[in-house]
């Protein structure tokens, strides 16, 4: 015997097109539509840009924007990981990445280990440190009350910056890169140059996003993340250890952030504030992507990078220094017109 509330057809396809699936379909349509709007805006601006400055310059700006954007996307991914499990934006994410990058730098500089190993050391150490920070500074607070936790992350940002300044000083340092950096190590695309460093960075970032997305959508840990993000008390009743779940999200996010820091540092130079700007762009990217979507973080990062490169590159009175303003504009525009972002889920609740 089973519950059949009505004589509705039993076939699984019976109600595919009705009820909640309408919501899913609407979400897909809405994502497609907003991606379309963004693409159309970029395309329209591109036409103007190509007429204005020629194809080669345009391609160069697109390449620069997209490859920078991938890095923003990676930091956004770290923000999204913590946000998914806790509903909180970690304002110290950039500072944690900066610290991890300094650790990797120390490993290369002082202990003379190969760069790949040093980056891995930095990632592992920062993951461990993040786990410790979560245990000591975050877990004592009620996970359902977000404001105190956000304030703690702000304080942590200040503390990490100060500590890094104390340990390593403010002098910018050059950071080695994983990829060949010779003056002719580039691919030529229509006259524009795509340097191997940029290409390699982008490929690593995409690989990380794909790997994390696959693990989290299939693994037990990913299920725990989604449960905790959805309802803390229900998750407790399912036997999920809330603290350890949040701790894992902090650890993974810190490792991803450190990797992004190590990939960004060769072009930006390394000092205690080098991640601050990138973090702002990552906020824009995460907001644009929808805050709870891993793929959205990457898409948001690329779009943010493109928007910044094109706007500051072709609108002379904005100037190169207006990049942060562009990020601000993206954040405000998304929150105003599409708060759930390009690929995020709008929470829907039936009372």
């Amino acid at each position: 015997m089973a519950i059949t509330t009505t004589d509705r057809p039993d076939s699984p396809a019976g109600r595919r097109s009705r009820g909640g699936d309408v919501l899913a379909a609407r979400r897909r349509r809405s994502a497609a539509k907003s991606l379309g709007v963004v693409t159309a805006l970029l395309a329209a601006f591109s036409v103007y840009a190509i007429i204005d400055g020629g194809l080669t310059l345009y391609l160069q700006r697109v390449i620069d924007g997209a490859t920078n954007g991938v890095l923003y996307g990676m930091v956004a991914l770290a923000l999204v990981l913590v946000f998914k499990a806790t509903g909180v934006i970690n304002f110290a994410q950039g500072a944690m990445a900066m610290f991890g990058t300094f650790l990797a730098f120390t490993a290369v500089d002082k202990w003379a280990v190969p760069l790949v190993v040093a980056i891995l050391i930095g990632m592992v150490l920062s993951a461990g440190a993040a786990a410790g920070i979560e245990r000591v500074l975050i877990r004592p607070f009620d996970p359902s009350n977000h404001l105190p936790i956000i304030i703690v992350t702000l304080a942590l940002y200040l503390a990490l910056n100060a500590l890094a300044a104390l340990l390593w000083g403010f002098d910018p340092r050059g950071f080695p890169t994983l990829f060949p950096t010779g003056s002719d190590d580039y691919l030529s695309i229509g006259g524009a140059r795509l340097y191997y460093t940029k290409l390699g960075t982008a490929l690593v970032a995409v690989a990380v996003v794909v790997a994390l997305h696959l693990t989290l959508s299939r693994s037990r840990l990913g299920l725990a993340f989604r449960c905790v993000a959805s309802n803390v008390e229900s998750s407790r009743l399912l036997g999920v250890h809330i603290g350890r779940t949040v701790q894992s999200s902090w650890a993974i996010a810190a490792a991803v952030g450190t990797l992004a820091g190590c990939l960004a540092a060769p072009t930006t130079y390394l000092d205690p504030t080098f991640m601050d700007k990138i973090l702002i762009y990552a906020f824009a990217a995460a907001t644009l992507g929808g805050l709870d979507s891993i793929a959205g973080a990457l898409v948001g990062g690329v779009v943010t990078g493109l928007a910044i490169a094109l706007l500051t590159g072709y609108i002379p009175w904005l100037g190169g220094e207006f990049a942060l303003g562009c990020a601000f504009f993206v954040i405000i525009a998304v929150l105003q017109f599409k708060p759930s972002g390009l690929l995020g889920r709008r929470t829907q609740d039936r009372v």
Partner: protein
Amino acid sequence: MTHPLLELRAVHAFYGDVECLHGVDLTVADGEVVVVLGANGAGKTTLLRSICQLVRTKGQILFDGAPIGANTYDIVRRGVSMVPQGRGTLVDLTVEDNIRAGGYIRRDKDVESDLGYWYEVFPPLAQRRSTLAGSLSGGEQQMLAIARALMSKPKLLLLDEPSLGLAPIVVRQLFDVLARVCAERAVAMVVVEQNAALALGMAQRGYVLEAGAIAVTGEANTLRDDENVRRAYLGY
């Protein structure tokens, strides 16, 4: 020596500094269905939350003869499952992920076949397995909550007002399925319910809570015939 599955000895519960249960004694035997009745604010929900350690408690709670411990995640692993009031649906997960989440503590290979079992018991869920659970109707969410709670293969199921906000016909069907499944799997139940007639119908024993303390206890039949219980909770 045999011991009850669950035993509460002089349990007090607190929200902050406010004491909401004042020394409750309660036992549940293996496979037994126990109903808890009481007016609004009598402490029924608090009683269930005490068992899962979602509130601060004093006094002894024994499960399977040993102290139940202080951590909800351990209690769930020992075989206690709870459907909270309002069903605790994970609204932005799909129906299937909700049921899977119910089996979160399990690491055996039967999770997949169990998933199939619940789709058979509740066909409406099978039809909407990839739908976000937040868009289900109240009745469907309650089916989901029951499937989710039983996915962990508990020895004891705690149900907080399963009939809340549901049409009488849906409630009756749900209770039928619940009674059958729990009997099949020898799952003991503690049901907190406003619908006293229905709950007393499926329970072996009952407790009446008044202002945080047990006022009356006895066999379900005895309670049904008790003058005071009848007037207060059955309405005739």
